[in-house]
């Protein structure tokens, strides 16, 4: 909107990021965008490739799996995507509460902003502990 035409170039702008002290609500906000866009651009293409590779036959599926055999790199992608999902999920649930007009009191808002990433880390950790205990990957 700003800069849509030259006429308003001298008009005052609202303060931007640099004048605010960082708080947990800002972290969950940007994490929501980062994890959502990360999943959209990395996770979902991998998901579709996985389905396509299964449908295209065993060799194609082997080739897909071979991309995850780079030592720890494959795990970093999978753990990263699972964290992105849980972070986005808990943050999205927080958004539903905010959409209803609740949870804007400073202390409440701060508490849930801290709880969201913690819950995402704990859920991701629990899921991978379960996977490790079953030895399926």
């Amino acid at each position, binding site marked *: *909107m700003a*800069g849509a035409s030259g*006429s*308003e170039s001298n008009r005052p702008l609202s303060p931007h990021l640099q004048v605010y002290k960082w708080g947990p609500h800002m972290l969950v906000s940007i994490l929501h*965008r980062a994890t*959502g*866009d990360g*999943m*959209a*651009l990395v996770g*979902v*293409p991998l*998901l*579709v490739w996985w*389905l*396509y590779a*299964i*449908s*295209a*036959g*065993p060799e194609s*599926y*082997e080739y897909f*799996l071979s991309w995850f055999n780079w030592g720890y790199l494959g795990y970093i992608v999978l753990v990263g995507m*699972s964290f992105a*999902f849980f972070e986005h*999920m808990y943050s*999205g*649930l927080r958004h*539903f509460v905010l*959409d209803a007009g609740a949870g804007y009191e400073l202390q409440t808002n701060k508490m849930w902003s801290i709880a969201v990433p913690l819950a995402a880390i704990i859920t991701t950790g629990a*899921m991978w502990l*379960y*996977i490790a205990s*079953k030895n*399926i*990957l």
Partner: protein
Amino acid sequence: MGSGTNIGRVRGLGSAQEGAHHWVMQRVTAVGNLLLVLWLVFSLIRLPNFEHELMIEWLSSPLVAVPMMLMLVSIFWHLRIGLQVLIEDYVPDHGVRFGLILLLNFFAIGGAALGIFSVAKIAFTGVVA
């Protein structure tokens, strides 16, 4: 319609009457994603292995193929709206923005089509046993 201030340039043009549509659909598909991706996560970690034969057998079941297809629709719809907001926030040039949103639509519809077709192919032709 004036030409000076921002409000002057839009006053009298009226509302497009569909401003809330993306907002509502982002939330509808969010609930769809919540249910369907959690279903996928729980289904995947409960599988005994990820051999090709088992994947075919698993995806051949209507109770897997159908939620998988619905999940692809919900996910791609949701990400299409989400990435459009990203583009609109960070790309100021109208031409580039238009081009990127066009690409985004091709990505979303093409990706969903490829995923759904793959699942359908497995479900209709893949029976091993």
